[in-house]
């Protein structure tokens, strides 16, 4: 079981997240798809760091990715709540306030 299995798995997980982001129109599920993509990037960082274990740079990067994902989820969900309060929907197809 080499590093290639980890790379292939991370690609598949990123693909699933990208498909979810592109095909779903529910803001909550789109945010969850973003989390899937961030997680797959973490798998890549940790796998390469394990393959070249001279220092901890990959793990430090993954640590910062986790922190940024937490901040992103907090702000994104706050935007979802604020938007729902205005329009009573969380479908992106009906998010047309900036369209005209």
């Amino acid at each position, binding site marked *: 079981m080499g590093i290639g299995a980890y790379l292939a798995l991370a690609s598949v997980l990123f693909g699933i997240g990208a498909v979810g982001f592109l*095909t779903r129109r529910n803001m909550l599920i789109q945010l*969850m798809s973003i989390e899937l993509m961030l997680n797959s990037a973490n798998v890549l960082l940790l796998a390469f760091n394990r393959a070249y274990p001279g220092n901890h740079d990959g793990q430090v990067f993954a640590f910062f990715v986790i922190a940024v994902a937490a901040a992103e989820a907090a702000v994104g969900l706050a935007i979802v709540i604020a938007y729902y309060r205005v329009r009573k929907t969380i479908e992106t197809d009906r998010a047309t306030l900036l369209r005209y």
Partner: protein
Amino acid sequence: MTGAGATLFVVTAIFAIIGALITVAARRPLRAAMGLLVHIVSLAGMFLTLNAHLLAALQLLVYAGAIVVLFVFVIMLIGPEAETGPIEGRLVSRSTAGALTLAVFLVVATSVGGFDAAWIAVDADFGTVEGLGLAIYRNALVPFELISITLLVAIIGAIAIARSPTE
């Protein structure tokens, strides 16, 4: 990699893919959040096979303990309006986008899957609290402080955005 590590990798990989598919395909956002929880917990198990013990614990604490709970709270606040079907109109363009994206990433997966690097034996403190903590505080102290400011700004911004305009 030893036999036990390979077994753990295969099991966690299967559960991670299942959780991701549930997240993307679920009709109810609460089920999607549960799929995300399965995905995150299995990835934390996979981090153990990569000698990333501290990050496995952080994955459980931050993702499963904070982010998924935040999602569940927002689903609870929004209520039944949060439920929209997995297929929501404009079927042709949407399925084309999904199929093309999946095709691209399957090609990438099959091409990078052959890459191989021999697993080198790691030091005893690789990925432990001591090893990773020393690496963060010696080499990445300024980014670490900056990320704390980022989190503070995100907290204040989330409160400012989500607060009711009548207050």
